[in-house]
């Protein structure tokens, strides 16, 4: 967690007023290489190397989990990929194109969505309005000059919002303010917001943190549902091993900023290095 604290002081340096390059250099539709690649990714905070030469390749439709003990640099990698932080060295490619120099919202517009560690929602807006905001961003792009058109005219936005809320099972609560939802439902809404942006890839930062066992269960069901229905590519950061082993095709284990093991769940379970670093030698 030490690394996340440090992120606040070292914000990314991209000029926020830059024009959108996402439209100009949008990647070609028929790309079928790895969806996300990081190439010798290094991030240093002063003397601390939070991310040390990380090379990730995530194929389309693949479900990858990122695990590791506290302070292993998981959050830093997520922040680098979502462009909240600038890497010290290395490159990040999404759909084959480098995303360095893009703003976070431009990365989202290219199809990479994120759900946060806490329920990051719009509290006083209704559940439906929450989904609408995300659907609007997906349908209209990052900015449009349409402040004089009534929003009832945008029926496609309404359609996406409805679809999303039905998918996460919150359609019946659509008129209640988001802040009135129980915690588990808030997290579902959060995932819904991330899905409404219609991403190709979803980054989930500890989607079950702080949930009760029942809520955790419901969330895992939701993840599996989404994974089957939409064929989404996932990058999951999670502490709960049960979920990790259940959901992922491949697991990447981080320790002190670098990848120490990588492979399918069974292999990781057996790996002595992982047991050493992550579990302190405890048999899994």
């Amino acid at each position: 967690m030490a690394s996340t604290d440090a992120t606040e002081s070292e914000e990314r340096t991209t000029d926020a007023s830059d024009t959108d390059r996402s439209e100009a250099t949008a990647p070609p539709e028929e790309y079928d290489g790895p969806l996300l690649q990081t190439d010798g990714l290094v991030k240093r905070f002063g003397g601390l190397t939070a991310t040390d030469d990380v090379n990730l390749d995530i194929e389309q439709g693949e479900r990858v989990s990122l695990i590791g003990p506290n302070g292993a640099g998981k959050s830093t990698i997520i922040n680098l990929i979502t462009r909240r932080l600038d890497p010290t060295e290395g490159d990040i490619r999404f759909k084959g194109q480098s995303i360095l120099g893009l703003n976070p919202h431009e990365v989202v517009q290219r199809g990479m969505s994120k759900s946060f560690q806490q329920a990051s929602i719009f509290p006083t807006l209704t559940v439906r309005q929450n989904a609408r905001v995300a659907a609007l961003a997906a349908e209209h792009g990052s900015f449009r000059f349409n402040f004089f058109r009534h929003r009832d005219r945008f029926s496609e936005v309404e359609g996406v919002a409805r679809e999303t809320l039905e998918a996460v099972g919150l359609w019946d609560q659509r008129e209640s303010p988001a802040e009135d939802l129980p915690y588990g439902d808030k997290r579902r809404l959060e995932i819904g917001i991330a899905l409404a942006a219609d991403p190709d890839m979803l980054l989930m930062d500890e989607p079950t943190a702080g949930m009760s066992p029942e809520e955790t269960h419901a969330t895992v069901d939701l993840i599996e549902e989404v994974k089957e229905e939409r064929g989404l590519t996932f990058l999951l950061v999670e502490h709960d091993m049960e979920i990790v082993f259940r959901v992922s095709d491949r697991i990447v284990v981080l320790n002190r900023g670098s990848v120490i093991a990588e492979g399918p769940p069974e292999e990781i379970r057996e790996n002595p290095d992982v047991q050493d670093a992550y579990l302190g030698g405890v048999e899994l």
Partner: protein
Amino acid sequence: MSDETRRADDTGTVDETGTGLAGGDLLTRWRSVKERESFVILGTVVAVLLFPYLFARAPVVSEILQGYQSLAELMLIWGIFVIGFDLLHGYTGLLSFGHAAFWGGGAYAAGVFAIHVSGSPIAMILVGTTFAVLLAWVLGFLSLRRGGIYFAILTLAFAQMLFYVALQPLSNLTGGDNGLGIGGSTIEPLLGFIPLDAGVPVITMFVDTWMYMLIGIAMVVTVAFAYRVLNSPYGMVFRAIRENEQRAEFVGLNVWRYKLMSFVLSGAIAGLAGSLFAIQQARVPVESLFWTTSGEVVIMSVIGGVGSLFGGPIGAALYLYISNIVQGMSEVVLFTQIDKLFPGAQAVVLPEWASPAPYWHLILGLLFVLVVVFIPRGGIWGGLQSIGSRIGSRFGGDR
């Protein structure tokens, strides 16, 4: 927004309880009508027409209120200003302490244009508003790089900078400390042939002069414009940014540009109000750029209700009422016209010590404190609304 469901709920409960079907039906219809754009605009038109009559000319009411026409005009102008301010603060969640820049900037631009180019009121309004838009673009570009208190301080600093520029270096143009005297004769008649102080035919009883007509139209246009913006995708994005800026960015919205748009739209409305102020006063006091002006608009907005379209004008009216009329109430007369109802009865004149005039600042402060303590979220307008919905639920069953 939530029409269908509410309607469904209402009819459901009415059937269930079986109380006054007709009443419940009417109430339901009323609720759905209330949210429509044309209704909001029509309501504003009626309010703008009735207001000066009730305030300045109606028997009994206006005598109790001691209102007068030019104060009614001023209330509307400030009301427009507060609507503009609230678009930024109430909806987008950005507290600016420098809105005097757009009010004063618009006023000076309109005034300077009137003196040196043309005194046509419409042209003055266009020039003042355009100037405010350009100014907002620049100041927004510079101050929106920081959030929260830093944003507030930056806007304050820029506005103060403009104040000192108007005071000294540009005093040839702005009249410096004395303010800019435009002069009533410089301001031309409306459209070239309607003098602003001439009476309006047919509806004279309601709208006294063309000056008020001009300001009233500006108010209606402002309400219609703000209502449209708030019900466009922008309105939703603004609220989303207010609620959770980071999440808004991570659904793929260019938060920075939306904030800049909010700032510019807000500045435009403030500039419109400033230009009207210059026309109505026929002069621009240098204080219109001073930080106290920025402070006044914040206070008006809080009193009336943050994040509500109609709270702004109500807050402005109350503030100006206390700072103008209560301030001048040297003698309080109760039951002024009671002899018309009960012949022979006498009006009561309170002794001098009971006069509220010396305490008007205190009264304003108390009002502010009461609002902040008891109705912090919706201000006076929010309070009125909750009373209204309570009465509604009394008669129409649930909600």
